[in-house]
C-alpha cells in the first residue's frame, strides 16, 4: 500500500510537469471558460431573464463547463501515453496499473482547481457577488472537486479505450456538450418538454443547482443529495471502468 502511495506521488509529479509544459492545453483551459463567461454575461446575458442578475445565475454553470473541459483533456493525455512507449516501460516495471491513471487524474484535479480559481476571480471582476458563508463555500468547493474527480476518472477511462489522441478528443466531446443541456445557462422551465425532462434528470443540473444555491442563496432543496449521489456514483463507476479498461487495453 505504501508503495502504491509513493508510486502514485511520483506519477502525479510527472503528470503535473507534463501538463505545465503543455502550454496550449493549459492556456485553453483558462481562456476558453473566460471567453464563454464573457460571451454569456455580456452578449446573451441582456436577453436572458433569470429573475436575478444574469452574472450571478451563469457563473456556477461556467464553472461546471470549465471543469468539464479541463477533465476532458485528461482523456487526451492518457491516450497520448498509451500511444507512446512509456506505458510499456511502466508495465514492465513492478508498478500497479491504476497508478498510471491516478497520476493523470490527480494532476487533472489540481489543474482544474487552479483554472477554476482564476475563472472565479474573473467572475467577481465582472460583477459576480456570491453570498456564501465559509461553510457554504467549503461545501461548494468540495462538491466541485468531487465532480471533477469523477469526470477525470471517466475521461481517463475514455483515454484508455481510445485508439488515438484524436478519437479520445472526440469521445470526450459529450462532456463539453452536456452543460448546454442543463440549467447552466438558462432555467430548465424555458425548454421544450422533452428537452426539459432530460436536462432536469441529467447529473449536471443538480450539481449546478447545488453550487448555485450554496454560492448565491437560491433554494437547494433535495438537489444537494442528488448531486452528491450522482458524483459519488459516477466516481465509483468511472474508477472501476477506467481501471478495467486500462487493464484490458494493455493485455494482449
Amino acid at each position: 500500500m505504501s508503495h502504491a502511495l509513493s508510486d502514485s506521488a511520483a506519477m502525479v509529479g510527472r503528470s503535473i510537469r507534463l501538463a505545465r509544459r503543455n502550454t496550449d492545453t493549459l492556456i485553453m483551459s483558462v481562456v476558453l471558460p473566460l471567453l464563454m463567461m464573457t460571451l454569456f454575461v455580456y452578449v446573451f446575458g441582456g436577453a436572458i431573464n433569470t429573475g436575478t442578475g444574469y452574472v450571478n445565475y451563469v457563473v456556477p454553470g461556467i464553472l461546471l463547463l470549465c471543469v468539464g473541459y479541463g477533465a476532458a483533456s485528461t482523456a487526451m493525455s492518457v491516450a497520448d501515453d498509451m500511444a507512446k512507449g512509456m506505458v510499456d516501460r511502466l508495465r514492465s516495471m513492478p508498478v500497479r496499473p491504476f497508478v498510471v491513471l491516478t497520476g493523470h487524474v490527480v494532476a487533472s484535479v489540481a489543474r482544474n482547481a487552479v483554472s477554476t480559481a482564476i475563472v472565479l476571480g474573473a467572475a467577481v471582476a465582472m460583477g459576480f457577488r456570491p453570498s456564501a458563508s465559509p461553510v457554504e463555500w467549503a461545501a461548494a468547493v468540495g462538491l466541485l472537486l468531487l465532480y471533477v474527480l469523477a469526470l477525470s476518472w471517466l475521461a481517463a477511462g475514455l483515454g484508455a479505450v481510445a485508439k488515438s489522441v484524436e478519437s479520445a478528443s472526440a469521445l470526450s466531446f459529450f462532456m463539453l456538450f452536456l452543460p448546454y443541456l442543463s440549467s447552466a445557462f438558462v432555467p430548465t422551465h424555458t425548454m421544450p418538454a422533452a428537452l426539459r425532462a432530460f436536462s432536469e434528470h441529467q447529473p449536471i443540473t443538480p450539481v449546478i443547482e447545488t453550487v448555485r444555491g450554496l454560492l448565491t442563496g437560491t433554494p437547494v432543496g433535495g438537489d444537494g443529495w442528488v448531486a452528491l449521489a450522482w458524483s459519488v456514483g459516477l466516481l465509483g463507476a468511472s474508477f472501476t471502468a477506467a481501471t478495467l479498461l486500462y487493464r484490458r487495453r494493455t493485455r494482449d
Partner: protein
Amino acid sequence: MIVEVSGLKKAYGSTAVLDGVDLEVVEGSIFALLGPNGAGKTTTVRILSTLTRPDAGRLRVAGFDVAREPVAVRGAISLTGQYAAVDAEQTGRENLVLVGRLRRLGRAGARVRADELLERFDLVAAADRRVGTYSGGMRRRLDLAMSLVAAPRVVFLDEPTTGLDPAGRATVWEAIRDLVRTGTTIFLTTQYLEEADRLADRIMVLDRGRVAAQGTADELKSRVGGERVDLRFASAGELEAARRRLGGFADGERRVLSVPSDGSAAHLHAVLDDLRSAGVAPSRVSSHRPTLDDVFLALTREGAAA
C-alpha cells in the same frame, strides 16, 4: 540458465507469430535474437518481459515463472523497447528520477542514481534539457540508462540500434559490453548481422516464428562452409543462367551469385570454366570468408524454398 523457454507459441487470430520456440540464455552472457521483420523477435521479447501473454509454453526468467509470478519477473528485468520509452516533455534527469522513484530508491536515492547514470551515458550537459530536444542517439542512451536504474539481472533490448548513425551505434554497443562486465545478462533482438556477430555470445536465428538455427557466430558461419566466392554479372539473365549451373544464392538486386568454395585457385578455375561452357562470364569475382549475412541468407532461403 537465467532465461528458459520451451514450446513457446503465440498466434494473433489465425496467424502463428511464434510456432514452438525453445531457447536458453546463460547468466551474464549476451544473447541475440536475429531475424527479418515479422520473424517474431519483438513478440518474444514482449512475452518474456510480461507484456504479452503466450498461448503456450513454459517460460522462466531470473528463476521466476513468467505466467505465475509476473511481478517478481518485472522486479528482476528491464525492457528497452523499439521506440524510445521516454517522456519528451520531461528533462533527461526528470525521466531518470521518475524511474528511480518507481523502482523505490526514494527521492534522494533516485537523484543520486540519476546523476551516476547521466555521467555514465555522457548526458550530463543535456541533463536539464527537455528530451524533445535530444538527438536520436541521445534519446536511445537515455532510454538505456532508464533501463539500468535498478541494476536489473536481465536487460531486454528490442532492436537497440535501429535508426542510429554509426557513432550512435558504437556508443550503444559500448554500453552493452560495459553492462555485461558487471554480470548483467543481455537479451537483444536485431536485424543486423554485424551487430549480433560483434556482440553476442550466442545467436538464435528466428524465421517466421521458428528457430532456423542457433549457436555461436563461428558455429553458424561454419554451416555455410569455408569460403564464399561472389560472382557479379552484367545482366539478370546471366545471373540466372549461372545460378542454374552452379547453385548457390543469387542476390538479384546486386546481380551477385554467392557459391561455396574451399578457397583454392583450382576451384576458382573450375568455376570459371564451368561458367564459360554455359556461355556466361562474370564481370567481377571476389572471394571472402563467410559472414553472418551468408548464414542468414542460406537459412532463410532454405525456409522459403520449403
